């Protein structure tokens, strides 16, 4: 299974409509904490948190603090931004393990 360690703070995404911006930080030993501000909190807040958590789980990230601003991003955008920010935080952008990603990303 893939395993990413959050080494440093990283950011991915924009504040444009249909996008979301994620700032990820170390959170050693304290699990996953998500602070979410969404333009569609009532209707999709629960779903957004679900997608964030499951993507982090698939990437083998156990501890991380996420600050997320969402402007109506679809699930695929949430997943893409999460993968991107984790790679940046884990300094893994130079050598990407596509097989690893594909193993869970159907």
């Amino acid at each position, binding site marked *: 299974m893939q395993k990413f360690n959050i080494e440093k703070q990283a950011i991915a995404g924009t504040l444009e409509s249909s996008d979301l911006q994620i700032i990820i930080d170390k959170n050693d030993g304290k699990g996953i904490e998500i602070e979410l501000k969404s333009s569609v909190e009532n209707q999709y807040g629960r779903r957004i948190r679900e997608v964030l958590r499951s993507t982090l789980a698939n990437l083998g990230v156990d501890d991380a603090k996420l600050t997320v601003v969402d402007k109506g991003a679809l699930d*695929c955008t949430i997943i893409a*931004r999460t993968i*991107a920010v984790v790679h940046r935080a884990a300094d893994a952008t130079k050598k990407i393990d596509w097989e690893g990603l594909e193993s869970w990303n159907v």
Partner: protein
Amino acid sequence: MMFVPASNAGMLRDAYIYGADSIMFDLEDSISLKEKDTSRFLVYQAVKTIDYGNTETVVRINGLDMGGVDDVHAMVRAGIQVIRLPKTETAQDVLDTEAVIEEAERQCGREIGSTKMMAAIEGPVGVLNALSIAKSSKRLIGIALGAEDYVTSMKTKRYPERNSDEIFFARSMIVHAARAVGIAALDTVFSDVNDSDTLRKETEFIRQLGFDGKSVINPRQIPIVNSVFTPTEKEIKNAIDIMHAIEDAEAKGSGVIALNGKMIDKPIVERALRTLALAEAAGVYKKGE
């Protein structure tokens, strides 16, 4: 072919509704260096998930030494239909990329050869090598002209108001190479979104030269390009008449066929068939009508 920058999450979703025949997600020139990695993941996930219907999906990758290898691996796995190479100079450029594509197909179990390619020619070396580039790979479905970089290398600039003579030779080389090999020839983008008249004139000209289509950068340009490439009612009627004349002659067993005092020979028949095929593709003609 409509250009869509890969960094724009909103555009990735909506691109297919505008009636373009293909959408080209750009990972290259429209994306800043800082955002190459995030944009790649964005398009990767989008193409995996979103249903683009009948629209062909294309991605313009970076040069192989500038992130293109990861671009290929991502997009082959995502299911992209065509990979477009930027700044193709030689046949070897095509082969080098094809090797990476094949490796990715093998690794992820995608049918070898199912990922097609397009080569964008954007400089004098590429223009002069157009034929060998066009012949280089069975995956190549078309070649395109990228005029902005080309004119810069040629130490000139674009003059759309002067009928773009500065790119005439490049256009000619590309359309000849494409026809010699039997693949598509695509013309360069027209950057002034508000100038519909010049866009129409330019599109009519490249159609006259024999190009198959044109790249666009804004949905508003699509109806104009489509209307130039869609056969007119008169052209369609003429083509139907020609086909009827052929059928009549065959029924009568006569060897030479004439319509309205003009002899109809093979090239004319081929053009008529092409007109009807284009018309059918544009949805303005149904066989049997």
